């Protein structure tokens, strides 16, 4: 009898321990499962990011790349990368809706040879229903990382980048940004970025070289971030600009002479223009609607100088080239140059001006610019020179006035605009008052030069 009781006791306790043990094992297994699920998910995400980075790098190296990757092995997982890139044109491509009805849904322009593969995983031909955002100029990378049955997707949108997006761009900087200097908008220098004290940069700053702090202690203030090792060399595709121009001003073919062109903008949407071939007199001024003279807003002056002022009501980009004739390829601002609708007061303003000079862009010293503030509203691009006032305005006048810029300065080098005392304060000349035109982050003046690279405008993960 006692033996049976003992056996029952042992069995009873064993049963209790088994149940408890099983329960604890389940809890432990559940905890490990939980960790593994997170690990798998993180690995799949990392693989998808790697695939997106690989593809983005390929596109930066080859602007027309759209091959993508199929079942590429990364970190014991695989990645499939689909690319929509119309840089080389849309011929031989089909618009499809990728992964409709999922978070990864995206309208893509893919090679005809890849259509069947996309159809096999549930895509359909045509833009995704209710997707108004498709823009054929935007390149898209869709990277799907797979790890232990978990799939994570990263979608990257890239757009061709324009120099107009910069508030300040310099190939080199002979002057050093210092304490008190404020640079508005994105900033790039194709060299080392030297700073003296604590200058302030309100937009993102990029530099080919490193950040070098000289002079007094203190750190630069980067309100939009800083990134080194970014190369964006200036380029000047005169052939492309010329071929897309609405109107070309030039001296008679074969004369090997330069030409000067006056472009005075009127606030009613017209422009008054006149020309002067080198050695001849000015032609009779004519006034015509901008949309008639240059329907797409692109005015090209070959081997010429442009003299401009006025109130622009419309969109224009003017280009001055040298074409081998010395003394030309400059743009001179002879008086205030502003928009009919000021975008700082009216954000929906569509007035937009681009000034592109193969050499310099200057504020001319004359009775209309001396001893007064000067206004410039435009994005300015000087390929081989710099942007600023004539020496007589910067150094010659005895009083201090403001140069109020709304737009961007993209130039080979900086130019001094005023005389400074030992305290670092301007005492005479034109004080640099720059405000970035934020519209240029999304739209640019017609035909303004591209950097030749893409920039990432959306990273969805």
């Amino acid at each position, binding site marked *: 009898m006692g033996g049976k009781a003992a056996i029952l*006791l042992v069995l009873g306790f064993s049963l*209790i321990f088994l149940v*408890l043990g099983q*329960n*604890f094992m389940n*809890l*432990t297994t*559940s*905890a490990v499962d*939980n*960790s593994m*699920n*997170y690990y798998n*998910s993180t690995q799949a995400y990392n693989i998808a990011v790697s695939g997106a980075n690989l593809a983005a790098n390929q596109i930066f190296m080859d602007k027309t790349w759209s091959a993508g990757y199929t079942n590429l092995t990364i970190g014991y997982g695989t990645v499939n990368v689909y690319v929509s890139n119309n840089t080389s044109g849309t011929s031989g491509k089909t618009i499809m809706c990728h992964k409709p009805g999922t*978070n990864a849904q995206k309208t893509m322009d893919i090679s005809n040879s890849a259509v069947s593969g996309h159809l096999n995983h549930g895509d359909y031909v045509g833009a995704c229903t209710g997707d*108004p*955002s498709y823009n054929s100029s935007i390149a898209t990378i869709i990277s799907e990382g797979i790890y232990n049955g978990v799939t994570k997707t990263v979608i990257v*949108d890239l*757009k061709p980048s324009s120099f107009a*997006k910069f508030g300040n761009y310099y190939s080199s900087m002979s002057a050093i940004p210092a304490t008190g200097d404020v640079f508005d908008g*994105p900033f790039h220098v194709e060299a080392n970025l030297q700073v003296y004290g604590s200058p302030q940069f*309100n*937009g*993102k*700053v990029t530099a080919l070289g490193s*950040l070098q702090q000289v002079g007094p202690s203190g*750190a630069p*203030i*980067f*309100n*939009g*971030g*800083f*990134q080194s090792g970014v190369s964006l060399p200036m380029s000047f595709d005169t052939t492309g600009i010329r071929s897309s121009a609405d109107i070309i001003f030039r001296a008679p073919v074969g004369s090997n002479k330069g030409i000067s062109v006056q472009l005075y903008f009127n606030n009613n949407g017209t422009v008054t223009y006149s020309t002067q071939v080198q050695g001849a007199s000015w032609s009779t001024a004519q006034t015509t609607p901008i949309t008639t003279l240059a329907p797409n807003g692109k005015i090209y002056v070959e081997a010429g100088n442009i003299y401009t002022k006025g109130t622009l009501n419309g969109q224009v980009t003017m280009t001055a080239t040298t074409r081998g004739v010395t003394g030309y390829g400059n743009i001179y601002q002879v008086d205030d140059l502003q928009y009919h609708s000021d975008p700082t007061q009216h954000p929906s303003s569509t007035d937009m001006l681009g000034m592109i000079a193969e050499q310099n862009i200057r504020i001319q010293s004359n009775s209309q610019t001396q001893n007064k503030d000067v206004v410039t509203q435009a994005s300015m691009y000087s390929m081989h020179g710099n942007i600023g006032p004539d020496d007589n305005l910067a150094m010659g006048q005895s009083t201090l006035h403001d140069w109020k810029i709304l737009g961007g300065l993209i130039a080979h080098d900086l130019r001094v605009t005023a005389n400074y005392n030992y305290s670092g304060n301007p005492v005479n000349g034109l004080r640099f008052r720059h405000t970035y035109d*934020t519209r240029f*982050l*999304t739209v640019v003046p017609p035909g303004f030069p591209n950097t030749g690279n893409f*920039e*990432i*405008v*959306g*990273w*969805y*993960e």
Partner: protein
Amino acid sequence: MGFSTLIDILGSTIVGGMLLMILWRLDDAATQNSFNYGGEVIVQKNLVEVVQLLEYDFRKIGYCKDWTQIPDPSQSIISADSTSIKFLTDTNNNGTVDTLRYYLGPASDLTMTPNPRDRMLYRVENHNTPAGANLGVTEFKLTYYNALGTLMSFPISNPGQIATMQIDLKIESTAAYNNEYPSVFWRQIRMSSRNLKNR
């Protein structure tokens, strides 16, 4: 009934009592272990839930399906301090800019739970009512670094200077046996939303 019978009864009572005490102790230990193991699993699951939500949202700081709606993503963080952050994003990927705010509520919001330290981590989308579930968050600490990697001090007057951030998260069980609260800690160092500085 003889003396030996009395001894038997006494002996069996003592043995039975000891067995009963062992059973009570076993029950107590089993309950404690169940609480601890179960609590640890729960805090781990809660941690993963919170972390996945934070990662999902924080990686989209400055993102909008229609990129023109956020022309300058570097200015996407609207306000930031050590226990809260508010930023621009596109939560449902529909091309419309949303504001999203995370903040840690006071401990007084959760006086009904045994754990005196747990707090609500609120998520507020646009002007909606703050949403949150009691997942046992006892610490949610944000640390910010500028473009030069320098620690930014509070208050942060210009959130545009934020380049990366560190997220510290501690989760405890909302109830525990003997006040022994299981806890887990997670730290994301130098988290950088790709959209914040990509243009």
